[in-house]
């Protein structure tokens, strides 16, 4: 059997997906199934004086209509898993609005009908009497004393305050020879997985089991929370996440719609399906980012960083979803980036506004940190007249300084930041572009080069540092026929773990890839697991698979020793066979071992039959992937248009199981970051109306305007897990945004442009040029 780990092995999930045989939730059709549609608030903030559903109920084909009052006491409020400080204000999040609506898209009523067209028609027949209230859309405004209070029972729009600090920040700033200061906006974004959310619920009245198919990244956590909301024993709720059409954090959630469909299926004793429209996805599935803050960097004249402080307001939206309050705290953990910064402080105010909740969007808190710091590095370099590559080199943590602990207590596992930087500069032909830039400027053309050296916190994570458990589980089961079943709690949604986990098992057990079946996303089939997010699929989930494979191999070795009539330490595994070391002519196959384990004739009495092992892997630390990206662009100063001329990414995600999958994650992530950098902004006007409510108003990167990426890797294995893997799902999104912005700001430096807030649409770039010229 050739080695599979480290190879670009073609994906095992692809045959079904390229033939249309994949199964996403909306593909599920059940006998007697009816369809739900949800009435949502057109107002950002209003009191509900009355809801009249009578006309809708009378519409032919309507099966049921429910409102918030109908489910009070029947569906418990949606919990939030994160509580960064004990005094955090926790709004009660009912599945349907009861007396007030808090954001455009707030669910008010559900119609269930015989088909999806009738359900949608009937929404128009529901009459709601609203008393519009003044909305609060802007987080800074939300903190003013005269601001309308969103959750009256909480008495304030300030959700909580949070601070993290390490080293002597005040002393650092007192000693500083230079202080660089900049206000930054990390704009609100919409994740836009191509598959909108979908839920199908089916009640088995005989067994009293509710089955919920849902498009989620975390089936077991959905089961835990929804069983609590519906007062169902966890054993009576089965959650299935079949093929999931992208998540990006938007499906790292438990949503009220899941509870509502479960409730309705039980109440009606009929299967119910709800498919989110794209408009609903934009209004009422979580958004990402949304921080406005000021960062200051204290430096010596030679470019040595002395300290850093960041004061920020983070917009929570109207409610918390699963992890809302935790996201900006991740920014705080990664503020020191790749540099030896002796003192750091972040102070944060988290604020309620009349908008959809923010939560984990690919990168979750860390793209913000990288963006801030890498912009600051460039601003400092310009201020001090140092080359941006040089100022980074000067402050990098050195390869021999790992494990490295930041002043606020984060311990980085391993890395070689300078090697990645050097290689990226080489690949990007940095010096050549600098010369070209100079030449171009003489001709009135504006070329810019942007560097971003990032480090991210991934492989989430040690349970003590996570809102819920941070471990992952796996079972490896060798069947009597020698075929292998892997049950993983790490349920993927596009990343390809069916393939990488197969590779790990093939490598460990010496079986053929065709003989391995990876099963995930079904709480009835798979032991409790956590799911995939925070770049943890391989580093945590893969490690659990590796450990379970080790355990089952130990068992197989015992059985083989018995069959060979030798001591256990006499047995050697060569590919799929077990061989006696002293007499290599004696050997048994894995199949023979499996046969014996399931048909244990003359078996030693102290040995259990069967060939199966389960492992729960609890990581001892996070992992810290890193890298350097270089972007070269040209800006047309007449139109504000930016053309990406070159983009190079050199990433270190530790050891790699499948380079092809890694490349896919990196490129996809970078293009998503390109979206944030250049075009995306989820925009609510000052009245709290969502202006970017459809794909036509919220452009995401398309084939013709996405940059072409040159990808390379360096490899410093992580000492945290036996695979040496660090994770790669978010690297592109975390590393890339500042490379784009640094490049554009570098291009426009001669015009006096210091900083432009994202997204760098032609209009925004043009405005910045005009402003700089005017001043």
């Amino acid at each position: 059997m050739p080695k599979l780990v480290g190879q670009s092995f073609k994906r095992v999930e692809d045959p079904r997906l390229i033939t249309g045989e994949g199964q996403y939730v909306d593909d599920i059709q059940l006998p007697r199934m009816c369809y739900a549609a949800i009435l949502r608030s057109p107002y950002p903030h209003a009191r509900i004086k009355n809801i009249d559903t009578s006309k809708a109920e009378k519409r032919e084909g309507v099966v049921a209509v429910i409102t918030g009052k109908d489910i009070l006491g029947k569906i418990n409020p949606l919990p939030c898993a994160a509580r960064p400080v004990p005094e955090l204000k926790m709004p009660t999040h009912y599945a349907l609005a009861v007396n007030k609506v808090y954001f455009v898209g707030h669910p008010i009523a559900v119609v269930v009908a015989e088909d999806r067209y009738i359900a949608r028609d009937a929404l128009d027949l529901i009459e709601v009497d609203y008393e519009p209230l003044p909305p609060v859309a802007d987080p800074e405004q939300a903190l003013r004393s005269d601001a309308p209070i969103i959750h009256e029972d909480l008495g304030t729009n300030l959700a909580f305050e949070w601070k993290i600090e390490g080293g002597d920040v005040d002393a650092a700033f007192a000693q500083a020879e230079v202080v660089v200061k900049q206000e930054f906006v990390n704009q609100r974004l919409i994740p836009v997985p191509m598959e909108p959310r979908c839920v199908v619920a089916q009640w088995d009245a005989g067994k009293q089991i509710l089955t919920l198919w849902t498009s989620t990244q975390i089936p077991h956590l959905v089961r835990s929370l929804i069983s609590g909301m519906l007062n169902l024993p966890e054993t009576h709720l089965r959650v299935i996440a079949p093929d999931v059409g992208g998540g990006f954090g938007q499906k790292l959630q438990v949503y009220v719609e899941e509870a509502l469909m479960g409730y309705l299926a039980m109440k009606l004793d009929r299967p119910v399906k709800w498919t989110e429209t794209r408009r609903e996805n934009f209004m009422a599935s979580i958004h990402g980012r949304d921080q406005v803050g000021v960062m200051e960097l204290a430096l010596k004249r030679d470019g040595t960083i002395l300290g850093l402080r960041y004061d920020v307001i983070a917009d929570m939206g109207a409610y918390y979803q699963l992890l809302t309050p935790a996201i900006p705290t991740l920014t705080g953990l990664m503020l020191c980036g790749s540099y030896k910064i002796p003192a750091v402080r972040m102070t944060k105010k988290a604020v309620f506004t009349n908008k959809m909740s923010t939560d984990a969007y690919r990168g979750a808190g860390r793209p913000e940190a990288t963006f801030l710091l890498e912009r600051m590095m460039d601003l400092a370099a310009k201020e001090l007249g140092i080359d941006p590559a040089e100022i980074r080199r000067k402050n990098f943590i050195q390869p021999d300084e790992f494990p490295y602990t930041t002043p606020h207590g984060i311990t980085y596992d391993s890395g070689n930041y300078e090697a990645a930087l050097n290689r990226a500069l080489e690949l990007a032909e940095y010096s050549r572009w600098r010369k070209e830039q100079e030449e171009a400027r003489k001709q009135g053309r504006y070329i810019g080069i942007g560097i971003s050296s990032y480090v991210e916190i991934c492989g989430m994570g040690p349970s003590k540092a996570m809102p819920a458990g941070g471990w992952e589980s796996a079972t490896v089961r060798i069947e009597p026929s020698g075929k292998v079943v892997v049950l993983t709690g790490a349920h993927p949604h596009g990343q390809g773990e069916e393939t990488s986990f197969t590779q790990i098992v093939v490598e460990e057990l010496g079986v053929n890839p065709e003989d391995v079946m990876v099963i995930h996303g079904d709480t009835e089939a798979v032991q409790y697991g956590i799911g995939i997010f925070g770049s943890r699929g391989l580093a945590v989930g893969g490690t659990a698979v590796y450990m379970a494979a080790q355990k089952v191999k130990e068992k197989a070795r015992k059985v083989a020793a018995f069959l060979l009539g030798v001591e256990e330490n006499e047995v050697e595994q060569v590919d799929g066979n077990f061989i006696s070391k002293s007499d290599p002519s004696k050997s048994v196959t894995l199949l023979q071992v499996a046969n014996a384990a399931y048909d244990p004739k003359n078996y030693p009495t102290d040995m259990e039959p069967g060939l199966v092992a389960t492992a729960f892997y609890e990581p001892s630390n996070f992992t810290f992937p890193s890298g350097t990206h270089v972007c070269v662009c040209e800006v047309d100063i007449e139109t504000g248009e930016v053309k990406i001329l070159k983009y190079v990414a050199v990433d270190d995600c530790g050891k790699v199981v499948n380079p092809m999958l890694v490349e896919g994650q990196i490129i996809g992530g970078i293009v998503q970051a390109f979206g944030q950098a250049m075009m995306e902004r989820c925009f609510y006007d000052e009245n709290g109306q969502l202006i970017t409510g459809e794909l036509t108003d919220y452009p995401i990167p398309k084939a013709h305007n996405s940059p072409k990426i040159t990808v390379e890797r360096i490899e410093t294995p992580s000492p945290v897990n036996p695979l040496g893997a660090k994770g790669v799902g978010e690297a592109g999104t975390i590393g890339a945004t500042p490379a784009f912005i640094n490049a554009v700001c570098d291009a426009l430096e001669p015009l006096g442009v210091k900083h432009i807030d994202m997204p760098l649409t032609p209009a925004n770039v043009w405005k910045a040029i005009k402003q700089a010229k005017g001043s």
Partner: protein
Amino acid sequence: MRINVTVNGRQYSSDVEPRMLLVHYLRDVLGLTGTHIGCETGVCGACTVLLNGEAVKSCMLFAVQVDGQEITTIEGISQDGQLHPVQQGFWEKHGLQCGYCTPGMILASIQLLKRNPNPTEEEIRHALVGNLCRCTGYQQIVEAVQWAAQKMRGEI
């Protein structure tokens, strides 16, 4: 209304409501769920199918509009268990991650290669502008189409 449609070479005769979208007809009535829905507003291309050999967005048509015509969906492009070269290309070159955009991407690519058997990268990127993918960043999709083009020209 009664319609007669040929889908993937098979004849269907169905009674549909005049307002039923073609994509819902394919998915809900015929059970061909490989055609996906990402927006229902003609933007994302997840619902792309071939109508008489031309790529169309099936969320922008009513089922009754295709009466008497011929539709090919993702389920209908492999022949005798043999994957279409474009399908092979997507598999070879890692042109998909979550797979949700993939059927639409593949059908749009088939249409492109029919018109232009030897497209440049630029031409591929422009031909796929009506199909959104949030996972791949498109680069490996472009490589997949290039691979398929070579294969169809008999060069691989």
